[in-house]
């Protein structure tokens, strides 16, 4: 993009890499659990990291549509948490 200062793409790329690394590390918690709640937390981590990643890529690649995707990420991340919170309480095995 022509409006970005010269070294900013580098900074954004590095930041995006850190974010993806975070996302991958967060998966360890997804795999390890132990319960449903921790899995959902990791999904929330994916959501917030994903929003940041999308915003970064939108600036880096100059695609404004990616910001729309970030918006939908933020909205729908709430849906998953709400659906989980409103489940009927199960009797065991959280």
């Amino acid at each position, binding site marked *: 993009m022509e409006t970005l200062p010269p070294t900013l793409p580098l900074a954004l790329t590095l930041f995006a890499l850190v974010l993806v690394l975070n996302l991958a590390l967060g*998966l360890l918690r997804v795999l390890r*659990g132990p319960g449903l709640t921790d899995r959902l937390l990791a*999904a929330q981590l994916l959501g917030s990291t994903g929003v940041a990643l999308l915003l970064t890529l939108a600036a880096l690649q100059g695609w404004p*549509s*990616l910001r729309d*995707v970030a918006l939908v*990420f933020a909205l*729908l991340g709430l849906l998953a948490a*709400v*659906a989980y919170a409103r489940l009927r309480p199960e009797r065991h095995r959280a």
Partner: protein
Amino acid sequence: MIAADLLLALALLLLAAAALLARSVQIGSVLFIAFGLVLALVWVRLGAPDVALAEAAIGAGVAGALLLLAASEFESRRSGSASARAAGPRLPWPRPQRSRPRWVLGALALACAGLLLLAAQAIEPLAGAATEAVAHALPQAEIAHPVTAVLLSFRAYDTLLEIAVLLAAVVAVKAAPAPLQRPLPHDPVLARVTALTVPLALLVAVYLLWAGSSRSGGAFQAGAVLAGAVLLARFASLPLDPQSHLTRPPLLALGLAVFILIGLGAGALAGAALGYPAGWVKPLVLAIEAALMVSIAATLVALFGGGKAA
């Protein structure tokens, strides 16, 4: 960014395997939601923001919530009473005598996927022939965004039939209605946040619909976001009950009806079914898309099923 792509691919595969091997289907569906989020990022990396929008809204949002709710209902009802499992009348199907050889099935699946990979790698890309053809025909389609042009102009009959399929699915689902559920207890925090986010989601839906004519967005993404808003309102037990109004048959059929009417009416003027007369493309496409958005949202909510008991 190759490293990022590799990590994303790895995350995708890990999540898919973990979702399928999870201890319970509940956990599996939460992992499926995470899978959908990562897949949406992959679509972005592949240069397909339209698909990413739909994946985030439908795959990670609506489909994940659907499976999660069904799984936890099974779980809670089954563990609620130990005898629940034996209570229902068993269907008189005999148990199989011997188990199927699982390794044969596994080998078959492996062979299938292997063949698929070989075939995929053997395909020589058409050097973007379709992309070029679309770009070439785009000016005369009078729709700025290529994906929208493909969906509503070049291959409009695909979209028309898709809406018909959705309608058929709703009819089938309505034939086996879900039991009505007791309203959930009021939660002040949730009510406040949904009162904030639901109108915002409605706004985003309309915005995506409008954006679809010039960049990523369109009826599918907008409809999915709209459905997400309605489901959010339902989970929060907001006083409005959008479900009963939104899933009435006229709204479900609106998209198909408007599509057919415009397709035939404008098509008669343009000289071809599903064609648009020159100069009228943008308003007509927008009208179709608005109707489609309402119907798609209504359909998704109806497919979700299970309204509130009064």
